């Protein structure tokens, strides 16, 4: 999984949606990983999740209210083809890469569709 970005931009479950949007803007990313106090992944918020929240009270609504629950993840040893198939099947652009230790939810990095496109462009 050499294409994965090591580390991830995260926010807490109690972070407001406005702050999540600001985190995305400042870091120029389209996702934010939501972690709990033990730094375990709880879910992920995408640009579309933020868009869906338009009309809600942005400072009162919390990350935990709009996140996509953590159910899909890969490990560093997942074959790239398998990861791409997972993205296509679930229609998601980023996969959370977690530790291979059984049951671990510690975030190691992110595999993003745009990094795969760069790989495809090189041929």
């Amino acid at each position, binding site marked *: 999984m050499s294409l994965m970005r090591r580390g991830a931009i995260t926010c807490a479950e109690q972070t407001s949606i406005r702050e999540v949007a600001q985190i995305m*803007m400042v870091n120029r990313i389209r996702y934010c990983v939501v972690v709990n106090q033990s730094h375990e992944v709880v879910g992920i918020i995408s640009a579309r999740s*933020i868009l869906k929240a338009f009309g809600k009270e942005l400072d009162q609504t919390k990350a935990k209210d709009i996140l996509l629950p953590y159910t899909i993840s890969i490990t560093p040893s997942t074959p790239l083809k398998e990861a791409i198939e997972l993205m296509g099947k679930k229609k998601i652009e980023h996969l959370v890469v977690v530790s291979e230790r059984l049951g671990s939810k510690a975030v190691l990095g992110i595999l993003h569709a745009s990094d*795969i496109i760069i790989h495809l462009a090189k041929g």
Partner: protein
Amino acid sequence: MVRVCDLMHRGVIYCYPLDSAREVAKIMATNQIRAVVVVDETGEVWGLISIMELLGLYGQELEKIKAEEIMKPYKIEVDPQLPIESAIALMKRKKIDQLIIIDPHAGPKRPVGILTSFDIVQYMSGLQVGHYESQLKMKD
């Protein structure tokens, strides 16, 4: 009232229907974008190729696949003067991440810009483009 033209990116990054999928991937990678507009020789919109369409081609010979084979026909025409709330509602309803903006004064199917979900995130964040760090510091 905030309108689409206040938030959209002016101009579109495009390819032609007969360009190969490899070229489309290069356009996407070079410009760091997630969708490429397909236009014909006269500049009219034919369709849109998103990052997910290209991802599905992994493992195939990209030189042999043409843009017109993988594009999704684009039928939603959005006026630059549309209120942003209506544009957001449209994106939510159609489950799409980008809207091609067509100016009726520029001619039929002439793209003048693109509005993405990331532009909406920026709008909702309340931050202006650039100088994010100084803006955040000013808040404190």
